């Protein structure tokens, strides 16, 4: 089914626009059309399907799933639930307070917040169709492990001392379960609302990502990255992580760039950690988290993620060789 997007792109680029095959412009345009049509199609489809089942995955439900579990179990549950929950960073703060207030360790809460933006159904399905399921599986497992390890480190180093004092004083008592319309029509309307809201929020990132990917794909010579970012170039991995810190995009938006870089022969470890760094370490997210965590805590959090990603990058590059 997904080949139809390649056909569509070929037809438009070479027949309708009349661009010659094999030219730089042709390659770029082809990449742009194929990825735009494919990614937006998948994006809409997956968000809609997930929206139909949304009521099982509200943050309130997740809170009750994790509440009162032993620490080690709570890290695992937190990253797994984080991975399947479609989650907007704008709800980080209520979620953080809600979790902490229920007595869930700060570590498990952080594990959830690390895993959630990196891994979600939308990114996973699109990544799978674009770079293949084997690499996608590696991406998922790594993301989960970094999240669990981050949760453990948060508790082990007693990072909860950097949580703002007022957070501990909030007493919500009974949390109100959201009221969802569970009739079929209600679910469809809700799911469609989700599509409009999420696509409306992230489409600029996705477009930008596709444009960058298309430019890389068409105009950067294959030898370029092989020379500067090959696996035996030790600084390529830290450079990828550091350059990802100020950049921010939704996970889906980075995928076209990942696709183009892999196509140019950049090693998998370097590409994966660039993606993780762009998605998981972001200034907008940190500004939001600043409401509940002090600056020092955020610096530790970002440093931990950066170090973990660098380690992951070296490991994968070594395994791939």
């Amino acid at each position, binding site marked *: 089914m997904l080949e139809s997007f390649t056909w569509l792109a070929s037809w438009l680029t070479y027949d309708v626009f009349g661009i010659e095959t094999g030219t730089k412009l042709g390659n770029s345009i082809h990449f742009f059309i194929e990825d735009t049509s494919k990614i937006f199609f998948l994006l809409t489809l997956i968000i809609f399907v997930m929206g139909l089942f949304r009521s099982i995955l509200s943050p309130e439900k997740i809170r009750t799933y994790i509440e009162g579990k032993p620490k080690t179990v709570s890290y695992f549950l937190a990253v797994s639930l984080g991975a399947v929950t479609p989650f907007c960073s704008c709800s980080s703060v209520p979620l953080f*307070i*809600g979790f902490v207030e229920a007595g869930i360790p700060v570590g498990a809460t952080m594990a959830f917040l690390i895993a959630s933006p990196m891994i979600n159904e939308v990114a996973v399905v699109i990544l799978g169709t674009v770079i293949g399921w084997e690499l996608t599986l590696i991406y998922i497992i790594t993301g989960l492990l970094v999240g669990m390890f981050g949760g453990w480190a948060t508790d082990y180093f007693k990072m909860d001392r950097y949580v703002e004092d007022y957070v501990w004083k*909030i007493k919500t008592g009974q949390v*109100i379960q*959201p*009221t969802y319309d569970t009739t079929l029509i209600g679910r469809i309307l*809700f799911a469609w609302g989700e599509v409009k809201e999420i696509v409306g929020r992230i489409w600029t990132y996705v477009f930008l990502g596709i444009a960058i990917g298309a430019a890389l794909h068409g105009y950067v010579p294959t030898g370029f990255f092989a020379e500067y970012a090959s696996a035996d170039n030790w600084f390529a991995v830290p450079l990828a992580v550091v350059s990802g810190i100020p950049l921010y995009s939704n996970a889906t938006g980075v995928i076209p760039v990942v696709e183009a870089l892999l196509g140019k022969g950049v090693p998998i470890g370097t590409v994966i950690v660039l993606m993780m760094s762009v998605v998981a370490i972001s200034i907008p997210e940190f500004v939001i988290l600043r409401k509940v965590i002090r600056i020092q805590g955020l610096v530790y959090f970002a440093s931990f993620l950066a170090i973990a990603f660098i380690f992951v990058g070296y490991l994968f590059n070594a395994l791939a060789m």
Partner: protein
Amino acid sequence: MKNVKVLGSGCKKCQQTAQVIQDHAEKNGIEIEIEKVTDVAAIMGYGVMSTPGVVVDDVTVHAGSVPTEEQVKTFLARS
């Protein structure tokens, strides 16, 4: 006069929520005053994790979505 609080950090959905309630009240001649609560700690204090939430006369009646006309009718008619 009923006091209605719309809980949410100023997102689009919260404005829609306030609008839906305002429209319904005007249409049916219910006297209300709408107040917006944007402070996260205060919102959590009402037991709401998913915004927008609605509080009528200090009782949380709704959370997690823009309420439908039908839901507004139900919670404004209560108490």
